[in-house]
């Protein structure tokens, strides 16, 4: 995406004030996003390591992230096309990274 046209000064000022006003909340969200990024990275790496795919408990074990949270990330990654469901393994399904999927964590690459 190219850079959008230059916003005029008044808008810039207004945005600045808004940022100021929401400062606290923005800081909290940024904090959350940092955690999300780290956890997503761990999950992606674990998925890449388990070429055949991994079950949620296995991913939880491998990453140290609580299994319900792993499940939430998997559902999210699946929704954005980054992860696909694989074969069944006991009571669980395995999940693996989709081929040539774009990352949905928002990284602009």
């Amino acid at each position, binding site marked *: 995406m190219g850079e959008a046209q230059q916003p005029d000064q008044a808008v810039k000022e207004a945005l600045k004030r808004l940022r100021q006003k929401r400062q606290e909340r923005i800081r909290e969200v940024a904090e959350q996003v940092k955690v999300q990024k780290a956890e997503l990275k761990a999950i992606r790496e674990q998925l890449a390591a388990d070429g055949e795919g991994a079950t949620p408990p296995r991913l939880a074990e491998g990453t140290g992230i609580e299994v319900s949270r792993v499940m*939430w990330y998997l559902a999210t990654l699946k929704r954005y096309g980054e992860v696909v469901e694989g074969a069944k393994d006991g009571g669980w399904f395995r999940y693996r990274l989709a081929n040539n999927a774009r990352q949905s*964590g928002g990284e602009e690459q």
Partner: protein
Amino acid sequence: MTSGRTITCDALVVGGGIAGLQAALDLADQGFSVVIIESDLSIGGKMIRLSKVFPTLDCSSCITTPKMASAAHHDNITIFTWCELQSLERDNTTVTARVTARPRYVDEEKCIGCRKCEYACPVLVPDPEQGGFSGTKAIRIPFSNAIPQVAALDPEHCMLCGRCARACPTGAVDYLQQPRQFTVTARTAVLATGFEMTSPGDRPQYGNGTIANVITALQMERILAPHGPYNRVLRPMDGMEPDSIAFVQCAGSRDLSMGVPYCSRFCCMYAIKQAMLLSGALPLADIVIYYMDIRAFGKGYEQFYQTAKAMGIQFVKGKVARLQGLEGGTVAVHYEAQEGEGVSVDNHDLVVLSMGVVPHWSPEGICRVSTGADRFIRTVRPSLSPVRTDLEGVFVAGAASGPKDIVDTIAEAGAAAMAASNYLAAVRQQG
């Protein structure tokens, strides 16, 4: 407060669920002009969020989307979503609604629904449209078949990082958008504000919403929906395919101590429906419904119930006293079986609560229509015209006047439209 622009129409419909849509269509098809105001980001109400619907097991999207689309495209219907009704007053033969359009932080006229903002956004938030089971973004199209297909930004989760604005091909993102006021004047109004479910959060006997793998029926609808969070039935706690699923009926109803003394009316049928869908998805799973009375009263409903029994779904007459979370995500259900000896305990992998149905909206301080002891909108001629409220020219339809399944809701919406059109015809004659 600035009053903003004024829109004039024949009939105002409050609520764009299936009741409001049907009423609007039945009015608009007669040539009346209709404005629908909807508080949510999309029209469609609860129904567009359901999986398949009893008693025919049609896919809910397939039945709701045509109605949504025909309302959205109707020459005589104008829809405003993401609105808040500030006041609804009636003076002589004019109904006046003051409405606030909440900011989406996305220009509705410019947005083309391409979702590029959503892909660009770095913030993951639990998706309320998927029962919280999957993440979505802080800016997003609410769900795949939402109408309108316009993105909205959730300021609570926005870092103002600017990525969405940069990704938007039409420059639609507007962080500075402000609420706008407008006024709708009409001759008549139909209230179709629907229902809400009570929350397990304040039910200690069900673990106050903290026991893993205890979910609500609406969450189960999402799990069963074709475009749900997992695209299959899994336990949200750990992704295991459940072998044993239990439904707890009247988990918030028919019990004064829970604040809902009345019957929530459609829970028996949706539990049976969900049980059937589950047994289709997981043929080997054990499915149990704990109930007090099975209320399968509508056309074809009793047959639906008997079919479920024949499919092997177990019906256990008994009141569930308590739920208990066990190691590994198992849930123990403590219940008093009607034909048993005292309290029994059974373990399940997943437990679904049929919570109580309460009104979505209270007219208090907004509109002079009165409500009943059950807090739903009171109807003054429940036998001969169940759509009449105590405010002349203002009618009610659907779950706004008490829990009602879709079939009954649609019939009532037609009835409200009929009453409203006759009222319109009468006031037109007066001048």
